[in-house]
């Protein structure tokens, strides 16, 4: 069996086993074991020859994202070992959590690996359904509201993406081509001969469909609610992985539609969604009082920035977008781990109740402060590098985009610095609780920060060339 398939089947097998493990601690350890095996498999993939095997393909574009997924999956399962007990879930819900988590990880890998756009759609839908279950896990009215909103909005979104996929199949049906129907490579090859009108229609549906999943404005309404509910590990994987899978699908489709010179340039539509997300999220950050919602809005901002990069297109624009996706996943999951640990200590997720962490719990406070700085795009982390690339690309190719892009970025950075001060440096609330934070929370945060730092200042040579090649794949 090809190694790539194992990466999908292993988590699903793990999910089946986890469904029968009643003991909390054992289940959490098995969960880590499965994620660690997935991480090793994704490292082995680096040595695999690239290309298509059956329904999966392995190329420079999905390889870095797969590696990232397995890293975040591993650190998140380590984090939940320490955190899940504090969530107050009964045995049945705890099993449901572990099963849904591994189901999600497998579907996420399949969504990135799929060569057939139909299979990609199926994978994104499975990942969505698994995360709906995780978001609603606590069963409080707020969690049910979030889960229902997530289910309905993403249900419609994903249905539109399927319609777009079917229309893409219709476009390709008219021109005889080789290869399996709906295969990405076959569609890319036949796109220049397809009817541009049908391709346009397909792209609109696919962009709106997968754009809903990626949380692009104005299709973002589900995201802040979903990331504020459910166990905090979910916020880390939703924000760090699911959004990437959706944006990766958009990028693949953009490459197909962009290959036909007579279509409406797909980059322009993507750019409009991206800039709208940057502006709306930049200002919305100022009105947030709930820490998890604040960082959920920051995810919308960062997805907007990555979409803007892909909208610019070309190797430089795509490279900026890809680097931004990688850097955002690492930094944002680190922030959610930190916020989760703080929420466990203080019993509230309001920013006002979480203040002064550096005074009361310095180990956590400083780790969180540095993570927030990384998310805000301060140097030397990866997001600074990608935002720098993005702005220089805008200045060189699309000077008009500087104004909305710069405005959104500055407003957002200011909001994040303010939140950074409120959470970490201001005076703690009156009932100061001191507590210890164990390695299961701090370890993942620092691991992510080190990786984000490496990505920002010392990109290893092979990874650099892989990202350069990936930027070419995106069209």
């Amino acid at each position, binding site marked *: 069996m090809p190694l790539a398939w194992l990466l999908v089947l292993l988590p699903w097998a793990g999910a089946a086993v986890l469904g029968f493990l009643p003991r909390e601690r054992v289940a959490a350890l098995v969960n880590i074991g499965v994620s660690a095996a997935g991480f090793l498999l994704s490292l082995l993939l680096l040595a695999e020859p690239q290309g298509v095997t059956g329904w999966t393909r392995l190329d420079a574009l999905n390889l870095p994202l797969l590696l990232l997924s397995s890293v975040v999956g591993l650190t998140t399962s380590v984090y939940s070992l320490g955190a899940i007990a504090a969530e107050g879930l009964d045995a049945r819900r705890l099993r449901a959590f572990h099963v849904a988590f591994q189901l999600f990880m497998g579907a996420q890998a399949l969504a990135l690996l799929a060569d057939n756009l139909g299979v990609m759609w199926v994978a994104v839908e499975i990942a969505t359904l698994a995360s709906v279950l995780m978001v609603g896990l606590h069963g409080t009215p707020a969690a049910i*509201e979030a889960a229902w909103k997530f289910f309905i909005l993403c249900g419609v979104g994903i249905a539109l993406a399927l319609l777009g996929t079917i229309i893409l199949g219709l476009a390709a049906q008219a021109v005889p081509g080789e290869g399996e129907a*709906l295969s990405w490579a076959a569609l890319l090859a036949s796109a220049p001969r397809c*009817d541009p009108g049908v391709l346009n229609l397909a792209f609109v549906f696919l962009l709106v469909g997968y754009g809903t999943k990626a949380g692009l404005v104005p299709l973002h309404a589900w995201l802040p609610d979903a990331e504020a509910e459910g166990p905090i590990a979910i916020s880390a994987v939703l924000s760090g992985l699911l959004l990437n899978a959706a944006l990766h699908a958009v990028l693949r489709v953009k490459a197909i539609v962009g290959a036909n010179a007579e279509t409406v340039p797909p980059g322009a539509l993507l750019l409009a969604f991206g800039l709208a997300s940057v502006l709306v999220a930049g200002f919305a950050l100022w009105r947030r009082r709930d820490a998890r919602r604040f960082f959920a809005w920051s995810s919308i901002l960062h997805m907007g920035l990555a979409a803007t990069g892909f909208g610019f297109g070309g190797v430089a624009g795509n490279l900026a977008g890809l680097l931004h996706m990688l850097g955002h996943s690492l930094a944002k999951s680190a922030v959610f781990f930190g916020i989760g640990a703080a929420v466990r200590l203080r019993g509230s997720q309001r920013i006002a109740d979480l203040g002064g962490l550096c005074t009361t719990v310095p180990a956590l406070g400083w780790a969180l402060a540095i993570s927030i700085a990384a998310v805000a795009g301060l140097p030397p982390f990866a997001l600074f590098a990608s935002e720098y690339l993005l702005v220089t690309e805008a200045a060189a190719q699309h000077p008009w985009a500087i104004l909305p892009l710069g405005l959104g970025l500055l407003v957002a950075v200011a909001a994040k610095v303010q939140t950074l001060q409120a959470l970490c440096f201001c005076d703690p609330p009156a009932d100061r609780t001191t507590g210890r934070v164990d390695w299961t929370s701090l370890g993942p945060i620092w691991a992510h920060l080190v990786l984000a730092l490496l990505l920002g200042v010392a990109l290893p040579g092979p990874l650099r060339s892989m990202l350069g090649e990936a930027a070419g794949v995106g069209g």
Partner: protein
Amino acid sequence: MGFGQLPYDVAHLLGGGMLLLSFMLLYQRRVAAVVSVLAAQGAVLALAAAWQGFVQGAPQLYLTALIAAVAKAGLIPLALRWMIRRLALARGVDAALGIGPSLMAGVALVALAIMVALPITTGAQALAREDLAIALSVVLLGMLMMITRRNAILQVVGLMSLENGLVLAAVGIAGMPLVVELSIAALVMLVLVVAGVVVFQMRERLDSLDTLLLHPHRGEPE
């Protein structure tokens, strides 16, 4: 293949039947009746898929038809009925938009679907084009139903009807991979299970399925 030829006419008739049933979903006043109409739409979908299998000479479409018949005309309506009985739902349909305006909006959406789908698909086969226009209409009407109904079960029915439109679009296009059709069918069942879990929790905690009541529970008052 064009008007006046049997394969085309029958496909058109079945597609038109699904569209008609989509309109019927919009004007039912009782939840149980809505579920019956959904079952009828599933049955017509099964016929449409079987007919396409016969016309295209694609045996795998018979499997799609069988799944549609078993799941969409049988299991899903049964499950929805069971949920309604189990939850002792109020029988009336609570609409955010009245029945008359809903139907008018529906007609406008169908016109929109035809205006979008027909002009741009001149290169494709006539059957695939018109099938797409009808399927797009069914999808849009399903969406309209999700928007204008406040009851959670009816929103799920809207989503199911929307997926019927997607399957109609997929079977109309020759050469769609079987795996896609199979997985759509499997996923619809999964969607229903997930929806059921959330709906039961909603009932348990909030004692109602009116989604309007959910809004005060947003985590952050503005």
